[in-house]
C-alpha cells in the first residue's frame, strides 16, 4: 500500500540521510504532494517539529534548493542535515 503511494504523483517520496534517517528509522518518507520547496519545508516542520531547531537543506534532483523551487512530478527530493565529511 505504502509502496504504491510513493509512485503516485499525489505524494512525494523524500530521501533521508544522516540523523534524519536515524530519527525517522527509515531511508525515506512519503508526504502529500506540495508545489514547491517552501511548502515542503512547512509541511515537514509541522510533522517533525525538531526540524525547526535543526539547520537542514533540501536537495531537488541533487541540487540544493537555495530559493523556493517548484517541484516537478518526478523530482528526486532529499532532506540533508549539516555535512560532516572529511
Amino acid at each position, binding site marked *: 500500500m505504502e509502496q504504491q503511494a510513493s509512485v503516485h504523483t499525489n505524494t512525494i517520496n523524500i530521501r533521508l*540521510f544522516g540523523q534524519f534517517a536515524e530519527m525517522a528509522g527509515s531511508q525515506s518518507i512519503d508526504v502529500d504532494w506540495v508545489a514547491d520547496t517552501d511548502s515542503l519545508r512547512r509541511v515537514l516542520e509541522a510533522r517533525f517539529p525538531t526540524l525547526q531547531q535543526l539547520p537542514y537543506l533540501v536537495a531537488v534532483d*541533487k541540487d540544493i534548493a537555495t530559493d523556493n523551487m517548484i517541484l516537478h512530478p518526478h523530482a528526486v527530493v532529499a532532506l540533508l542535515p549539516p555535512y*560532516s*565529511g*572529511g
Partner: protein
Amino acid sequence: MPSLPYYLPIRVANPFIAIIMEKKVKNIFVQGPIAASFVADSIQKHNTKTNIGAHSIFLGQVRNDVVEGKTVVAIDYTAYEEMALEKMHVIREEIFQKYPLTCMHIHHSLGRIEAGALCLFVFTSSGHRKAAIDACEEVVERIKKELPIWGKELFDNATHQWKENS
C-alpha cells in the same frame, strides 16, 4: 582493503573520445579505511609521469575526540553518494580550470572507521609546488563544505553523536 579504481591518464588520439572520457564521473568512495600502503602505491604509480615536479597529499585521520567524558572510538560515514559524486565532478573540473595540475585523486571512506585510521586521501600533482599545494588545500575545504557526507561519532560507551563540520 579492496582493490581501488586507479585513474591513469587516458591518452586517445580522437579528441571527441577524450572529451567523453573526461566527463566520466569518477567514484571517490571506498568501503572501510584507506590503507597507508594504498597511499604509498598511489605515489609509486606516478614515477612514470616525469613532467610532475610536486605532489601534495592530504590525509584525514579519525581523531579520538573526548566529549563530556566520552571518547570517540570510530566514525561511521554515510553519504548521498549520487549527489556527492556529481558535486565532486564539478569541483574537480573547477580545480583543473583554476590550477595547472597534472592529476588529482580523491578517496573518501564510507562505513565504520576506527580512531587512528585514514578516512580521506586527497592527492594533487603538478609541475611546480604551488599549484599542487593550493589545489590540495582548496579541494579538502570544498569536500568538507560541499559534499553530502555525514559522520556519526561512535563513543566508547555505545552512544553516538552526529558530527558537524565547522
